[in-house]
């Protein structure tokens, strides 16, 4: 019988190695669950097709823009939330199954557990967004601004994803079990519907409009929109790309800082 090599008991992986190992584990785990992969890829595309072909006609155009050009940037932004929602479920699963307990009982960098997941989930998000974008083009979406603007919009979505990953890590840690974490998807639906992601806020009743115009998803959707639509969007969004990009980055930064602090604190604190 081989014996365990001695002299290794006091080790621990550093934050970089730890992040790498756990990012790899999260990615492999995701890829080996076809149902999750399919769900991720199909979810946003399905919603997009529904809006484009079922409601699209009814909604018509806004300010001389075809609805498809208005809405695809919104879908992609909303897609960021739906995809990163998976982070909450993944973390809750790890808690439920004791994986997090095992890590916490090890001499292991607290942050790496979380950064590993964020890195992996942002990578997965990039792929899912690329597919969603491709579907967007397939259903008729066209960039009205420069290609650079489009790339900036894509990058911006990844930044939002990074921020929302931290938000959903906190949600997963606080929920503690998969059922509770899944319950949060309802909130994601509400927050994305009550934003400019799918329809212009001008069409909403006053109270809803007040909420919609002051929440992060609207700022983000408008930022993506103004980068892809260029000058066309200025007229009906009221401001140019710079305004929305900065606004959305403030939101993303705030979310990232607040929820990474909450997550690390919650994770580090002896639970219960």
């Amino acid at each position, binding site marked *: *019988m*081989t*014996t*365990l*090599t*001695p002299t*290794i*008991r*006091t*080790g*621990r*992986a*550093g934050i970089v*190695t*730890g992040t790498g*190992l*756990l990012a790899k*584990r999260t990615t*492999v*785990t995701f890829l*080996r*669950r076809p149902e999750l992969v399919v769900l991720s890829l199909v979810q946003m595309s399905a919603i997009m097709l529904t809006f484009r072909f079922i409601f699209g006609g009814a909604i018509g155009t806004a300010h001389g823009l075809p609805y498809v050009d208005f809405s695809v940037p919104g879908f992609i932004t909303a897609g960021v939330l739906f995809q990163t929602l998976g982070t909450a479920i993944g973390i809750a699963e790890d808690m439920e*199954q*004791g*994986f997090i*307990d*095992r*890590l*916490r*009982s*090890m*001499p*292991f960098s607290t942050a790496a557990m979380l950064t590993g997941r964020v890195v992996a989930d942002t990578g997965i998000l990039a792929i899912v967004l690329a597919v969603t974008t491709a579907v967007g083009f397939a259903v008729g979406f066209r960039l009205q601004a420069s290609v650079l603007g489009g790339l900036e919009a894509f990058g911006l979505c990844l930044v939002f994803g990074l921020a929302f990953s931290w938000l959903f890590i906190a949600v997963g840690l606080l929920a503690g079990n998969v059922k509770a974490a899944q319950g949060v998807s309802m909130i994601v639906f509400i927050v994305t519907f009550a934003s400019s992601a799918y329809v212009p806020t001008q069409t909403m009743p006053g109270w809803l409009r007040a909420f919609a115009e002051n929440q992060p998803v609207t700022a983000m959707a408008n930022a993506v929109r103004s980068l892809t639509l260029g000058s066309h969007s200025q007229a009906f969004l009221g401001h140019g790309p710079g305004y929305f990009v900065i606004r959305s980055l403030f939101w993303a930064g705030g979310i990232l800082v607040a929820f990474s602090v909450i997550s690390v604190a919650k994770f580090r604190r*002896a*639970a*219960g």
Partner: protein
Amino acid sequence: MTLTIEARGLTKRFGKKTALDGLSLEVESGQVVAVLGPNGAGKTTFVRSVSTLIRPEEGELKVCGYDVRREAESVRRVIGLAGQYAAVDQALSGRENLVLVARLFGQSAKQAKANAEAVLELFGLVEAADRLVRTYSGGMRRKLDLGASLVSQPRLLILDEPTTGLDPRSRLDLWDAIEALVERGTDVLLTTQYLDEADRLARNIVIIDQGRTVASGTPAELKRRIGGKILEVHVRDRAHIPLVAQALTREGVAAPEIDEATRRISVGADDGAAQWLIDGLTAVRDSGAVLADIAVREPSLDEVFLALTGQKTSSAESVGTATLETA
């Protein structure tokens, strides 16, 4: 001799519920200790405190000389935890799980691979090593989980109900695996609801209930305190219960316990009572009661509690059948 675990007056509350209520216990190094208790006794809460996962509000707790609150990092370097639910990743293979944990402990890829291999061999998982864990049986999963807590060569291995929910065969398997570890000199803290498990694996048993230590000692010491075996008579007809109970009543000894629902009458029959046993059984025969079954059996966890504390366990129903092997 250094103490592996030193707990004094540990108290942990969850809201109004007091999970640990001034628990004290000491474990010397070079020992296997079993914390034995019914559901809700506080076993997991204790284990989680020792593993630095929760912080007791009061009391002192040292693991291998390190304070769990002030020196949590040092504690984590010397322990290996296999929690109550197997914490292995279902979407990874057995080998990948072990390598991952080893690498998180800072081992090189090569070291981690070698250690994973050694653990797989130790637990007879070599053949299943490259299958995804989601295809494993419950017993295999438990073994892998145990293995994952071993790849770092811990000084103290902490196992929370390692065999609960396993079939008898996997249970024996796991016991063998744990015994093999003990032989190699790993200290083990394990919790269990089963007397026979504690008896088989542990040199010391600590019985807890409602967050407090009820009794502790070697299996032999505890057995001496409990007394010997139990004579149990099972009658066919409820009306015959009093007949049997009367036949088994004897001067200076606790009256027979009667369980109306299952129509069983039981009475302590310690080792010195062989002659009385024959008389008692004769009296039962002469009582005219129709018997369904008759047995001399080991005391259950419940009866041990009763003997040691004069009280029923806090969840008497759930642990009816655990038995203690006599030495």
